């Protein structure tokens, strides 16, 4: 059952609409696949079989009664960073191992209102801090294309679950590449919208000025379908945008003749795996053959995005994570001696090594005497990086480049070398610092492993990115390739 061509969310909805299957059948099928495969894959932290079946039956009843929402019965998984009412939300941390929120994130709520059925919560790097899914308290998730390799991170579980065909689509969040890089490493399509496009309410904060929720799915069409439901102003998130949400699905067929695609020169130099570069150039050549114009551009400050990001994100994280103090909810150490001991041990036991590292870096960067040299300078750099993008967009419509410097790497290969690990984000961080939308789509694989092409758009120009990716996916089928059957791997 696992080797068939994966089905898209759009085709599943069509089947439901035509009565070719019921939502309950779809959910049972998902649960069966998860049961068969996920022991090895570890893409889910929590599976809510009972809740999903109940929701599926309700969706079927709604369909029968003619009051079904546009996504009624569609199986979906949520990254375990999105709060789900009544369903454990751990952020892949021991700190929240037993945390059951009494509310749902706005994005989750909107999808549920449209009828989508939550199958479970996916694995991730702890508090979204990581690029390999190896920092999860629940153990690493594996790449369905090669079980010895990582799925990328932090939304590794969502990427792996979609790639393995366990669910047609999943939510993800992207603070520095956490949707795009795992999408690239797992051979799926993932979009990180403009900062402010999707409400952050109920999405557990890592770095507030960078965090953005998005979609990980098989195709650009599915991304358009789900993003249209998730996006839109939320009065409960002051940073959510008031910009109206276009109909992304009908935008998929917009004319793209003469579209100017900017290629940052430095992104295709020696820092990129040359074989990966070849795959990307081939894909870009196909877009050119379909009427796009390729233009070389420069992003002169983009090489500073790693240092800028790794000051700003930890600085924000260090205070966002201060609330986990063992007082009101979350992990509390046993028999604290006093307040200091309660704080120290609860946090020491509750947070993993990477989270502690970033809290320390962030605390340091904000400290008196270091603020100007670190945090403030990083913010100034951020403005330069953003301005580079805005300048580039005066001459091009879309910017294209690699999503990650190479294909999926092996488990354990980079986890003990944070600086090498952080290089994974070279091409993605600038987008978050500038607040831009970007997506990753699969092109021709390399040695049996997926390769992702990153498309970056102007603020709130998600529709064009989706249309461009859709155009490519109309003529190619890389996005429909399935990994080898489970059990074949390692």
């Amino acid at each position: 059952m696992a080797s068939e061509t994966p089905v898209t969310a759009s085709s599943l909805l069509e089947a439901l609409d035509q009565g070719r299957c019921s939502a309950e059948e779809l959910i049972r099928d998902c649960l069966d696949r998860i049961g068969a495969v996920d022991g090895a894959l570890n893409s889910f932290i929590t599976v809510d079989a009972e809740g999903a079946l109940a929701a599926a039956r309700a969706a079927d009843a709604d369909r029968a009664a003619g009051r079904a929402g546009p996504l009624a019965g569609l199986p979906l998984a949520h990254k375990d960073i999105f709060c789900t009412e009544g369903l454990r939300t751990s952020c892949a941390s021991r700190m929240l191992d037993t945390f059951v929120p009494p509310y749902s994130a706005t994005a989750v709520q909107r999808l549920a209102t449209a009828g989508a059925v939550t199958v479970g919560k996916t694995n991730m790097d702890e508090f979204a801090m990581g690029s390999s899914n190896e920092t999860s308290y629940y153990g690493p998730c594996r790449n369905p294309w090669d079980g010895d390799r990582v799925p990328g991170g932090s939304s590794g579980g969502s990427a792996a679950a979609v790639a393995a065909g366990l669910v047609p689509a999943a939510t993800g969040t992207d603070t520095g590449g956490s949707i795009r890089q795992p999408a690239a490493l797992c051979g799926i399509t993932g979009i990180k919208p403009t900062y402010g496009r999707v409400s952050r309410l109920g999405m557990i904060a890592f770095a507030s000025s960078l965090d953005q929720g998005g979609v990980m799915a098989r195709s650009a069409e599915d991304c358009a379908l789900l993003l249209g439901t998730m996006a839109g102003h939320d009065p409960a998130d002051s940073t959510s945008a008031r910009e109206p949400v276009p109909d992304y699905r009908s935008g998929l067929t917009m004319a793209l003749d003469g579209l100017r695609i900017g290629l940052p020169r430095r992104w295709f130099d020696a820092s990129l795996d040359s074989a990966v570069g070849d795959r990307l150039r081939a894909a870009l050549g196909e877009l050119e053959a379909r009427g796009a114009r390729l233009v070389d551009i420069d992003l002169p400050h983009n090489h500073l995005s790693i240092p800028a990001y790794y000051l700003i994100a930890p600085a924000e994280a260090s205070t966002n994570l201060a609330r986990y103090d063992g007082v009101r909810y979350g992990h509390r150490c046993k028999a604290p001696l006093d307040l200091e001991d309660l704080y120290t041990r609860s946090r020491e036991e509750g947070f993993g090594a990477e989270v502690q590292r970033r809290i320390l870096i962030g605390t340091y960067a904000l400290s008196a005497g270091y603020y100007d040299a670190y945090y403030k300078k990083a913010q100034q750099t951020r403005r330069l990086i953003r301005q580079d993008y805005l300048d580039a967009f005066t001459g091009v419509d879309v910017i294209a480049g690699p999503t990650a410097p190479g294909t999926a790497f092996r488990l354990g290969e980079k986890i003990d070398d944070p600086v090498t690990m952080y290089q994974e984000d070279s091409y993605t961080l600038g987008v978050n610092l500038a607040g831009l939308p970007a997506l990753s789509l699969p092109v021709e694989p390399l040695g049996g492993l997926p390769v992702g092409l990153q498309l970056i758009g102007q603020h709130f120009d998600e529709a064009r990115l989706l249309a461009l990716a859709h155009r490519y996916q109309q003529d190619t089928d890389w996005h429909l390739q399935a990994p080898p059957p489970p059990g074949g791997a390692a």
Partner: protein
Amino acid sequence: MNWEPVIGLEVHLQLATRSKIFSGSATTFGAAPNTQASAVDLAMPGMLPVLNEQAVRYAVLFGLGIDAEIGRRSVFDRKNYFYPDLPKGYQISQFAEPIVGRGQFEIVLGDGTSKTVGITRAHLEEDAGKSLHEDYHGQTGIDLNRAGTPLLEIVTEPELASAEEAVAYLKALHSLVLYLGISDGNMAEGSMRCDINISLRPAGSDTLGTRAEIKNVNSFRFVEKAIAHEIERQAELLDSGGSVVQETRLYDAERDETRPMRSKEVATDYRYFPEPDLLPVVLEESLIEELRATLPELPTAKRQRFQDQYGLSAYDAGVLADSRALADYFEAVAGTCSDAKLAANWVQVELLGQLNREGLTIGDCPLAPDALGGLLARILDETISGKIAKQIFEAMWQGEGDADSIIEARGLRQVSDSGAIAAMVDAALAGNPEQVAQYAAADDQKRKKLIGYFVGQVMKTSKGQANPALVNQLLAEKLPD
């Protein structure tokens, strides 16, 4: 050595919004613990603050009220520290770009002189919760009802020179915020709490000494006592060759002393940085103008106008302008009776006296201002005398009706019929020949006394209703020279 105190105050003013500054929870005082704490107040994962616009409007009104620079763009920051009653591990405050910049306002001191106090800044922030150490036997309870209550922190320049000035400033501030309607000013419930920065320097010196900060003093009287105590403590220290340590101290009202807070709680690096969950507050000129248009006449201006327009003394104007409700009451009375001085006198003496005796405020006054004005009008048109008026005032206070109906019902109308009074004067003289004879022989001093005696006789006959001026006039005519 002759030491000169230098005092600066930071007032935490609770704004009178119905809901909290960043959540929809109610701000009502005295609710059962944690019944007014939402997921946002509890800092649950994924929760976000949303700024209460009414708090912004109140802050701007305050800025306009002290003629301050209004920050057209102000920024919220996170002030980071761990404490159990601070759920997020940071307080949302304003640091580098506050909503209200430099301003000033005038205070009047006991000797009638006035002084302008510089306001450094005022910024918006959220209150913390409360740690409850009693009743939990070795544990600490936490009540987050107060967490997120909107505060305006108002910081003065170090320009106050005595406890008296500090208290005068606080009273004037209290009066101002009530005028503006931005706070209930209820000090017993913590709506106005004060941190006192205080240092001493040799009289006449320009440099500032090392200061101590006394935290969280919540009544005028305690501020006065805390400052007095702290001046004494620092002076003794300096006189004996010691030095003041920069530290945070607590005022213990029971023992009337200040003492250091645990050193752990001071010298913290708060790691301020801009709050990424909130956008900068950008104030449109139109909003500022809209708010400016709603500004009431403020105490200082009103005090001056009462002197200019009604010819009141500075003292009377000060008493009447102290609260907006009292000032409005006075003006309504003056309007009804058209004699502002009489109105001022009655409001200050009779009305405030009665309110004080019954422990009421002007807001609870059972007597409408036009009722009191109606009574005073009867004095002015000589229907009644001032003395009878006090009797009627009592009756009105007891709810017996308006002045006219009480006058009619009790037959208290003043007799101004000169024929009738002449008859009563004649009777009084005829009935007291001895005193008339004494009068004829007496000097001026004695005559005055005897006139008083005859007036008394006539008043007794008239049951107090004879017009005293007429009685005096007729007596003068009828008594021998």
